[in-house]
């Protein structure tokens, strides 16, 4: 750390072009005087414009946020371990559920996907880097500040936001703590970061594909991220609008969501979910891409129905704009609207089903091996599909009146987000760790991580279905006696799942520090340009575009 200060001063005075940057570094580290080597020290990370370094930053940041949000979930589960109020105030409990949701959605899942996009998209399409490397640096480095602001609100006098991550008005406008302004500001920063990331992905994919990499030769991960990026650009401004209206309603006397001033609280929900539903797909489409890479690689077969996969992804993305009000069936919409949103929601099952069928068909009559990425991918398909089934049940309006805002919903979205999105991210990590680090991960430990995770995640979330059906509302710090036993099981599952993720941390650190050397292509049937590169992938790759036939 001693050298870091003069180093950063040096860099400040130097123009920020890539070549100059490495020259500035070479003033201190003479042996590093080579353009293709990564600069050393903290400056490497702060000033980086390298897609791999920024990808690494995103991934580590997301993992730290995953543990932070997870710690909050532990508080929630500890309080719910038995009936009565034991550990926390209801007010603080509400802050925990709110910040847990925000941290997991915007801090853990989304940055993890952006990190994977940064690392993999250029290597998958044969590009030397992302198209807009400086914006790439900026879009990452504003994120830690966004979350510092959000998390610091926990220490303000009225506490952190306590109105749920969905921040329904008027709870978030007239009845919210003073820290709401911090929440609004941090969401703005997160939104700007996401939009910049999305622009970068689109520009890179559209402009920087290697010659011969036609649209229908792109790996599914690239396809799904391209579509995700469009969704991001479409809906993040809507979220920004929603939080801004909350801000002006609370602090500047407007009445967007206040009936007394001519506004409408339900309009808030329409605006929020117009963002919120595509957001759900933002968090799952890249998963589809990951699974579509891993299943063929360990089945020894090509992905079944590549074209239909692309079309299915596009139709899911389009339909995601037509289903938002299925989150609001109990707000008293006209019957016609309820029917419209029910039918559209049910329709989403079709393209989603196509994807699942395609993955199963890919496995069918393959020659499967079950390395850790494959195990996570298979768990993804099964558990995500269970989440899909409960999603279908939730689409049925009359039944939704009973499910809505109960633990059934909590079970549903954790199945698709934890055993869905998060499992796919872990599958991706195991799949590409050899390429990132040049080492194989510890196989035995990774199996331990997998089995602990897959068992505990089900102990954690499956019984929640029963709780919801039996009538336990979500977001309550205390509950009636009849829910006690199941809640205890759920909490035990929660603690086990939380602890299991420390194994993952151990595996990753161990893999970075050493281990069996990875070959360029450690998976026999893996496909894609990334496997033509050495392991670990050099700091700069595809400076000359590869040839694709």
């Amino acid at each position: 750390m001693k050298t870091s200060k003069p180093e950063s001063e040096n860099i400040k005075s130097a123009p920020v072009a890539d070549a100059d940057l490495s020259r500035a570094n070479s003033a201190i580290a003479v042996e590093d005087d080579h353009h293709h080597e990564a600069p050393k020290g903290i400056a490497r990370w702060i000033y980086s414009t390298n897609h791999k370094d920024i990808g690494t930053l995103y991934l580590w940041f997301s993992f730290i946020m995953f543990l932070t949000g997870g710690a909050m979930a532990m508080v929630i589960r500890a309080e719910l371990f038995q009936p009565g109020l034991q550990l926390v105030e209801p007010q603080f409990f509400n802050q925990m559920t709110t910040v847990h949701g925000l941290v997991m959605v915007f801090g853990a899942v989304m940055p993890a996907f952006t990190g994977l996009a940064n690392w993999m998209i250029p290597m998958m399409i044969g590009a030397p880097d992302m198209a807009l490397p400086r914006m790439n640096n900026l879009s990452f480095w504003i994120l830690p500040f966004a979350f510092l602001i959000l998390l610091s609100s926990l220490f303000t006098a009225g506490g952190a936001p306590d109105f749920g991550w969905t921040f329904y008005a008027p709870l978030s406008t007239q009845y919210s703590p003073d820290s709401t302004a911090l929440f609004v500001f941090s969401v703005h920063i997160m939104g700007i970061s996401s939009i910049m990331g999305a622009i970068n992905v689109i520009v890179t994919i559209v402009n920087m594909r290697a010659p011969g990499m036609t649209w229908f030769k792109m790996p599914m991960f690239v396809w799904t991220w391209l579509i995700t990026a469009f969704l991001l650009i479409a809906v993040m401004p809507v979220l920004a609008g929603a939080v801004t209206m909350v801000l002006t309603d609370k602090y500047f006397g407007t009445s967007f969501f206040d009936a007394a001033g001519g506004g409408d609280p339900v309009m808030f929900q329409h605006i929020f979910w117009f963002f919120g539903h595509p957001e759900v797909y933002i968090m799952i489409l890249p998963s589809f891409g990951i699974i579509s890479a891993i299943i063929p690689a360990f089945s020894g077969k090509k992905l079944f129905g590549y074209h239909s996969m692309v079309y299915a992804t596009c139709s899911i993305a389009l339909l995601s704009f037509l289903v938002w009000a299925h989150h609001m069936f109990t707000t008293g919409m006209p019957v016609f609207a309820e029917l419209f949103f029910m039918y559209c929601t049910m329709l989403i099952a079709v393209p989603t089903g196509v994807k699942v069928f395609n993955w199963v068909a890919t496995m069918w009559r393959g020659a499967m091996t079950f390395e850790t990425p494959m195990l996570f991918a298979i768990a993804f398909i099964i558990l995500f599909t269970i989440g899909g089934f409960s999603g279908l049940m939730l689409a049925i309006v009359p039944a939704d009146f009973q499910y809505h805002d109960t633990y059934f919903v909590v079970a549903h979205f954790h199945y698709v987000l934890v055993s869905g999105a998060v499992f796919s991210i872990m599958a991706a990590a195991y799949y590409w760790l050899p390429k990132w680090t040049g080492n194989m991960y510890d196989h035995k430990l990774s199996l331990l991580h997998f089995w602990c995770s897959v068992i505990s995640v089900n102990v954690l979330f499956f019984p929640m279905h029963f709780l919801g059906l039996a009538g336990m509302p979500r977001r309550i710090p205390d509950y009636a006696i009849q829910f006690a036993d199941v809640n205890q099981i759920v909490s035990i599952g929660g603690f086990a799942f939380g602890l299991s993720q420390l194994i993952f941390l151990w595996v990753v650190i161990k893999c970075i520090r050493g281990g069996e050397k990875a070959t360029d292509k450690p998976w026999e049937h893996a496909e894609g340009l990334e496997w033509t590169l050495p392991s670990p992938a050099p700091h700069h790759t595809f400076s000359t575009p590869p040839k694709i036939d």
Partner: protein
Amino acid sequence: MLAAIVSSAQAEESAFNMTKGVTDISGKVYDLHMLIFYICCAIALVVFGAMFYSMFRHRKSKGAVAANFHESTKVEVVWTVIPIIILVLMAIPATKTLVAMEDTSRSDLTVRITGSQWKWHYSYFNEGVDYFSLLATSQKAIDGVEEKGAHYLLEVDEPLVLPINRKIRFLLTSDDVIHSWWVPDFAVKKDTIPGFINEAWTRIDKPGVYRGQCAELCGRAHGFMPIVVHAMEEDKYDQWLLAKKDEIAKAEQEAAASLTATLSKQELMTLGEKTYLDRCAVCHQATGAGIPGAFPAITGSQVATGDVSVHIDTVVNGRPGTAMQAFSNQLSDKEIAAVVTYQRNGLGNSVGDLVQASDVNTFKAASSQTSKEGQ
């Protein structure tokens, strides 16, 4: 695994599955739920069955050799069309039930339900009967000092009373944030939205006590605003309504009498403490310390130690734009007088003045006078 889930779901219906409820609609909703559930199970059986078969048979360690197919338009069309057919079959009963659920016409009686932080206000249309319904579980039970009863957190001081076999229309609204009135046995869950009125209805088949909870996050005590409905035979309900009207008339007489009575400090403080703990402590805390940044303290506050008319005004009319609600219709003049006295002379304050019901009444009369003049 699925079979185990299904059988456990049937064996202990109440603990693990949706309730069938006690209305025609709730039965239909339950059937719909089970139908979709079984369809999902059947699909799961086919898809996961194929997957597991493949995982056991087509593994490299068993010498499987990968086939080479990776496309088939025919198969793709089949597994696009079949799900669409299944979905249409699901949508038909769902649509029928939904349309029936939303038909609030030709009701026999109407009850207005108003949610507020954190209680329900029931008002029988054209009957002149209305009252509040609050959680009856003691704070001690919540804190674990007292044993928790069988209906812990699902008990109220005054339940909503409804007749069976009559079509009851609910009009739902809210005084502050969005709440959601949910009784699983009726399959009724409807948001109460400030400034808007929602409609729902039910027709109860069986007399009994039915319990539910607020289902929309509404702030600190969201988990502590249960709903209890007593469903009675029609004649019993009619009797109850008459008795309730009598009770209300008596209470009004008492309130009028209290205006001329002068209570001792001891009496005011006792009633004031009870009222404070029931109504105020949820935000301002039993000690009067409040929650910094969220709910102001009573102890040493400017309102509770300053001008008494400002204090009465705050309790009677609330503070618009904050969580402090208007209590003028929720508490009697006597209770307001007592709670104001208690806040000024208890909780660490010692202003020394007493407030009588007549003071509150005079304040109310004066403030309604000024607001009329203002118009």
